[in-house]
Every structure is written in C-alpha cells, then in structure tokens.
C-alpha cells in the first residue's frame, strides 16, 4: 500500500521539532519551503492517482476500517488538498521578507513552527476518515492559527487572536458535542461506517440536534453569516502574510467540513431538507450577503474591506451548495477554488506592496499606477475577477452560481445574488479609483523587489487561465457534484 496519504500529514509534523530545535530563522525558512514543496509534490502524486484510479484508503497501522483509523483520499479531498497545498506553497515562497520584517526575529522559528502545524492540521482535516480525528486536527490548526494571528504588528492583534480563540473554541466544542451525539446513537466514529449506521437509525431528533450543533460549530469556522465577526478582526489584525494564507485556506477548510459532513456523511438523511433548513440557510446567507456587501463598501481599511468581501463570497458558496443540485455544487466548488486564488492574490499583492505598514487604508493605494504599472495591471485583473467579469476565473463561478439559482427557480435569491455581485463593483471601484485617478500623497511606499513580481504575475495568469480553460475546475467539480447527488461518478 502506498504510504503517500499518511506522509502528507506526517511529513510537516516531522519537520516541526527540527524547526524548534534549530532555532535559526534562515534555516527554519528553508525547512518550511522544503516541507511545503515536498507536501505539494506528494499531494500532486496522490491527486493524480486518485483521479485515475479512484479513491484511496489508507489504514493506519493496518487496522481495518471501523476499528482502526483510516485516511480517505477521494476526489473531494484531493480537490481541497491541492488547493491548500498550492496556497501554502505560494504563501511560503513569497513570505520570507515579509516574515523577517513583521515578526520579531527571536520568534521567527516559532512562527514557522506554528505555520507548519497549521498546515498539518488543514491537511489532516481533509484526509482523515475519522470524525473525532477531524476535531483533533481542527484544534491543531486552530491553536496554531491563534498563535499566528497574535503575531501581528498591531496593538490589537493579540486581542483579536484571543477573541478568535474564544469563538473558535466554542465552535470546536459544539462540533465535539455533535460528534458525541452521533457516537451516542451509532457507536462509531468512522465516517463511512457512520453513513451506513445513520441510514438505519431511529432517533431522528438526536440526529437533528447533532446537525444543528455541527452547523453552528462549522459555521463559526467557515465564517457563515452571522458567525463571521471573528474573520473581519483576524484578517484586519493578523500579520498580512497570515491573512493572505488564511484567505485561501482557513475558511475553505470550514467549507470542506460542510461538504464532508453534510453532503457526504449525512447525505442519505438529507440534512438540509429537515425543517426546511436549506431555505432558512439560503435566506440567511442572502440577507448576509446584502449586509456584508454594504459594510464592505463602507470600509476605508482595505484589509477589512476584503475581509467583508470574503464573507460575502463565502455566502455565495453556501447558497450554491445548499441548493443541492449538480450545478449548484459545481458552482460552490468552483467558487471555492477561484475565490481562494483571487483573494489570496489580492492579499498577496497588498502584502508585498505594504510590507511594513500596519494598517493599509484605501488612500495608501493612490498613485500606484504611475509607480508600479505592471503590478497595477495585475491588480486590475484581480479586482475585475473579484467582480466577476468575463475572461477571469470569477466569471466562471458567477456563471454557475446564477445558473444553479435559475435552475432551482429561486428568482428572488437570484436577483439578490446578481445585485450584490454588481455591488462588488462599488468597493472594487474604490480601489481602482485610488490606483488610477488619485495622486500619490506620501512618497514612502511600494517597497517591491523584482523577484516578488513572480508570484503575483503567476497568480494573475492563473486567474486568466482559469477563466478560459475550465476543465481543471469545472470538470473536476462537476464529477464530484454528480457523485454527491447521484452516487456515481
């Protein structure tokens, strides 16, 4: 049996003690890069394997499934693994100078340790086939992310981290409670086994109870409106590279758990049809998306604006997912990928432009176009992708989102989504307005080296590529969606 699935989790974990013991920030950076590259290579190999030969199960210690702990790599997990691995790689490659400038040098190695742990947690959540292990990995990633956030160079960073800790812990405990409830009625923790057991279970109320707790718990993690408060603060106050990293991974992990729990484990019960939960959630998300977009327009701090925008886009992902039709699930998966790439690239550009700046206000962007014409064009493409204009990745997800809403005949929600996606233009315009039409007021800005262009340009090209050639995103998402709904690939 191939050892790749477990290596994906173990390898970064093995590097953690090395980083701690070495205590040197140059070396620790190299180790993190090494680990990320290896991780990404392993993920790619695994993904190729899964896409050609079907799902891979890895039994830890050779114990068979319901008793032993298993890792499960199917197409859904591979999609998210690729995403996380890629985002991690991009952030790690471009983070050296940023970390050196923002984190005090005595703590750099600890910062990298936490980073590795966080990534381990993410991959663990995705790969595990054991619902309790999912909780453990969730906590691993959360605890390390609390630390990462607290390393921000703003006064409120620590406080933001603590607040996230409180909210995150409550969410995690809710999840744990739900796991307990599920265990109570089925006596198993293995996901596949759980699916089988739940299909014959009698106590529907307890299942519903568990579903509600899971919903809240995971909702916190994935910043589902109205549980999004922490996300704004964390994005605004954590080190900007951490924001960049989290924008593409952290909330997407929440979405993954949603997919895994609601559309895989609990799929047979149709968790969303109980008590017309789906209608409630769609309505809630739609209200959310309107409010959030409104808040985003009002912001003057770019990080906060983009954070609100993230919450709004996450609501789109939820709406599409909850529709529970093939095109809806395709839309939500495609948007997970596209939005991750778009948002990460936007944050990365801002981070690289304003490495040592604490707070990035809209007015700080003024005059960018004259000083950095190439970066500006990249930035323009990213912004337009966020609005969802054609030839960019954002358009593809928007197309599928609207298509699925129309197919479900939710006319009102369709109009809300269409209107809010137009409102996106308002806050994106505020950035473009500054970039192109305002004169630069202060001269001290845009410390950007040549080699830092590379990740930005690469991501920009990727955004355009994914807007034209969609077999990687739409093709894969579609087969997952059909698998979820009809049970066949």
């Amino acid at each position, binding site marked *: 049996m191939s050892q790749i699935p477990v290596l994906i989790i173990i390898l970064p974990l093995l590097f953690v003690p090395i980083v701690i013991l070495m205590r040197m920030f140059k070396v620790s950076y190299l180790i993190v890069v090494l680990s990320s590259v290896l991780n990404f290579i392993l993920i790619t190999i695994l993904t190729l394997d899964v896409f050609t030969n079907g799902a891979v199960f890895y039994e830890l210690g050779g114990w068979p499934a319901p008793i032993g702990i298993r890792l499960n790599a199917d197409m859904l997990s591979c999609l998210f693994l690729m995403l996380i691995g890629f985002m991690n790689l991009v952030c790690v490659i471009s983070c050296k100078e940023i970390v050196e400038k923002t984190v005090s040098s005595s703590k750099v190695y600890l910062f990298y340790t936490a980073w590795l742990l966080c990534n381990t947690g993410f991959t663990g959540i995705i790969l595990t086939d054991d619902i309790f292990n999912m*909780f453990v990995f969730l906590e691993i990633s959360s*605890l390390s992310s609390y630390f990462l956030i607290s390393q921000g160079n703003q006064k409120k960073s*620590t406080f933001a981290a*603590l607040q996230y800790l409180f909210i995150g812990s*409550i969410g995690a*405990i809710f999840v744990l*409670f739900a796991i307990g409830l599920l265990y109570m009625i089925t006596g198993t*923790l293995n996901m596949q086994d759980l699916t089988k057991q739940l299909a014959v279970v009698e106590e529907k109320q307890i299942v519903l109870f568990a579903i509600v707790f899971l919903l809240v718990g995971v909702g916190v993690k994935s910043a589902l409106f109205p549980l999004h408060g922490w996300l704004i603060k964390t994005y605004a106050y954590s080190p900007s590279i951490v924001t960049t990293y989290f924008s593409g991974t952290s909330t997407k992990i929440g979405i993954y758990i949603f997919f895994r729990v609601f559309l895989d484990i609990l799929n047979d019960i149709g968790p969303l049809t109980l008590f017309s939960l789906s209608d409630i959630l769609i309505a809630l998300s739609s209200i959310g998306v309107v409010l959030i977009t409104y808040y985003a327009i009002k912001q003057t701090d770019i990080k906060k604006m983009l954070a609100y925008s993230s919450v709004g886009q996450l609501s789109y992902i939820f709406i599409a997912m909850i529709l529970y039709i093939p095109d809806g699930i395709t839309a939500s998966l495609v948007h997970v990928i596209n939005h991750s790439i778009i948002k990460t690239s936007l944050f990365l550009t801002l981070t690289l432009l304003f490495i040592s700046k604490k707070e990035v206000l809209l007015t700080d962007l003024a005059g960018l176009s004259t000083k950095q014409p190439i970066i500006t064009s990249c930035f323009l493409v990213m912004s337009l992708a966020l609005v969802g204009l054609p030839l960019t990745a954002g358009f593809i997800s928007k197309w599928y989102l609207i298509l699925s809403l129309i197919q479900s005949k939710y006319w009102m929600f369709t109009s809300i989504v269409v209107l809010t996606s137009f409102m996106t233009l308002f806050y994106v315009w505020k950035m473009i307005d500054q970039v192109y039409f305002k004169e630069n007021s202060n001269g001290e800005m845009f410390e950007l080296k040549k080699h830092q262009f590379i990740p930005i340009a690469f991501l920009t090209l990727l955004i355009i590529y994914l807007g034209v050639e969609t077999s990687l995103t739409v093709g894969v998402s579609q087969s997952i969606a059909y698998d979820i709904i009809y049970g066949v690939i």
Partner: protein
Amino acid sequence: MIYALNMILFTLGLVIMIRESNLVKKVIGLNIFQSSIFIFFILLSKLNDSLPPILEDYSYDYSNPLPHVLILTAIVVSISTTSLALALILKIKKQFNTIDEDEISKDDQ
C-alpha cells in the same frame, strides 16, 4: 438526570463566556463549558452498573473505553487552549494594562 445537570453546566459555561467582560473569567467559562462536554462523553460510556474498563481475569460489564480515550485527547486540547489563552491574556495585560474586554474595545477607536 445527570444529563440535565450536565446541560446546566454547558449553559452556565456559555453564559459566563458571553456575559463576562473579564478575559480570565471568560477562560474559566470556557473551561466549564468544555468540561461539560467531557462529562457528557464519559456519561455515554457508562452502562448500567458497569465497572471501569480495566482488564482483569474475570468478565463483567465494563464501560466503553473509547470515549475515555477520546476525552483524554480532548482534555489535552483543552489544556493547550487554556494555556494559550492565558498567555495571550498576559500579553494583553502588558499592552493595554487591563484585562477587561470593554476597556480594550474602547481603547484606540
């Protein structure tokens, strides 16, 4: 009955976390909250008149050992959460000279 008491503990913890503005008290609330879930798991494992799951020569009804093991892990997680929270509070105390949430929020606005 014990389940009901447990739920009271659960609610109590949650209420403390929401109501208190003192950060340390919040951590205490979090601990109570977590403990209630731990107890819930342990309760699950208990069968009628079962004994602790310790391997001995003769057979008898013993509790399900799995939840115990799970909770052991969860307790470790809980301890690390608590310690991280306390460490963060110490840092906050240094920065803001207070550990009251309302005063911190008032600060620098």
